[in-house]
């Protein structure tokens, strides 16, 4: 399977880079409530796609359908060309509320994905230690989640998702429960991660600034029933230094444009 590294390249969307995840005609009904209607969307390999929209637009529902945690009422999701029938080793999930085991140490929490896969203890702990160091939590291996700050807890959640080495990382508003400064640091780190790891990131957020800052493409979802109203691909932001993105005219223009199309849906 050819692995194309698209970070830093500058093609038009018409070039159609290889797709890691495709969503075709997906609908989801909860009883009589229509959460998603006939939604189609492509996720290019090695890139970060943000799902952005007002609350109640079904972003998280879509993410959980891609994860295989929810079953669509109609339509199909494919990961690397294979249809999704449930959770799989090719996808890992980062939860909004971190979903850490409160009775387990950081080390066991990070290794938990591997533990469920039946990886032997010594091996999984060695892998976990490597990722704990990578997210900057060295020295906290034996701490319990309640001893950590919100930001550190989410780093544990991120390390757990990284340690199973899935090709697709699904992130459900991962930074919404951490404070503003920690969030900015996270966003910078995430850009580094996208550039370094050849993984596909799907990122749910309700923050316009966050979506434009971290994404290769932003899919704007509108509510009731959800549909993709627009896909925006920032062109020049990836090559800029992380410290300068927020001052870039393109960044400011896109943020403004998105707000103009969303404002009528915010009550």
């Amino acid at each position, binding site marked *: 399977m050819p692995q194309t590294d698209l970070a830093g390249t500058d093609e038009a969307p018409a070039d159609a880079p290889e797709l890691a995840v495709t969503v075709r005609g997906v609908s989801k009904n909860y009883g009589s409530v229509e959460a998603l209607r006939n939604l189609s969307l492509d996720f290019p390999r090695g890139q970060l796609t943000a799902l952005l929209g007002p609350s109640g637009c079904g972003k998280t529902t879509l993410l959980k359908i891609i994860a295989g945690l929810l079953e669509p009422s109609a339509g199909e999701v494919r990961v690397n060309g294979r249809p999704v029938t449930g959770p799989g080793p090719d996808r890992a999930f980062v*939860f909004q509320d971190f979903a850490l085991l409160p*009775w387990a140490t950081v080390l066991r929490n990070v290794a938990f994905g591997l533990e*469920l896969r039946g990886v032997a203890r010594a091996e999984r702990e060695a892998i976990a230690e490597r990722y704990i160091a990578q997210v900057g939590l060295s020295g906290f291996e034996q701490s319990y989640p309640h001893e950590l700050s919100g930001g550190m807890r989410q780093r544990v959640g991120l390390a757990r998702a990284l340690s199973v080495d899935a090709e697709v990382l699904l992130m459900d508003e991962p930074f919404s429960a951490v404070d503003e400064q920690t969030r900015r640091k996270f966003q910078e780190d995430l850009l580094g991660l996208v550039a370094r790891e050849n993984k596909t990131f799907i990122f749910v957020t309700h923050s316009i600034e966050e979506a434009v800052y971290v994404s290769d493409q932003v899919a704007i979802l509108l509510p009731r029933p959800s549909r993709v109203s627009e896909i925006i691909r920032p062109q020049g932001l990836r090559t800029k230094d992380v410290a300068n993105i927020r001052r870039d005219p393109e960044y400011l223009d896109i943020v403004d444009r998105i707000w103009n199309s969303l404002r009528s849906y915010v009550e």
Partner: protein
Amino acid sequence: MTHRSLILKLLSAAIVFGAWEIAGRIPISFAFPTFIDSMAALFAMIADGSLFAAFGETLRPLAVGVAISAFFGIVLGLWIGLSGWFDWLFSPIFVVMQAAPLAALIPLLVMVYGIGLTSKVFVVCIMAMPVIVLNTAGAVRNTPASLKEMGRAFLGNRRDIILKIVIPAASPIIFSGLRLGVSAGFIGAILAELKITPTGVGDIITYSRSVADYPSMYAAIFSIIVLAVLFLNLLERLEHTLFRGNIRGYASD
């Protein structure tokens, strides 16, 4: 910190025993002995070995009943908590059992199972099991949804999710149910000995009262309470060794 809590414990014991001593000296009733008299009777019973013989009798239905209640209570509670169908089928039985006036039902039990060990074990189970079942079921039902979802997302099978997520998450409430159930079991064991046939500690209580030896009667009651408290502390130790993270606070704060 531990030093201070020890002092507080001793202080509260001193207050209770002091009040007992004063109430006995007034006396509030001729049937109420002083603390010192009761302790003297207790040591006399320990010295002549009659207390140990009595506990040997009482502990049999108690241990069997508590063991049955703990094992089947937790298993049934897990089942009820995990399956809506089982919940519908079994929950009402235990709610009724918990609310039933047990003392009034004992003659019925005696009629069916006689006056032997079986009836007494039944009484202990009826007292202990409902709270264990209902607590376990409630705790299992309230496992945080995102933890179960996490287990599924990381490819855990059903067995792993139950053993590694549901049970540890439910363990604080399962243990509090066990503590309540065990204390109820102690009450049940004594109740059975008072209501069915006087044996063991129940026999000391009944006999001492009939000959107006009130210090011995209260000594017997006191000894069973001490045993219950010791056992509950042991249970707490067990919980702390099994689920270390839980005592360090819950991570949702």
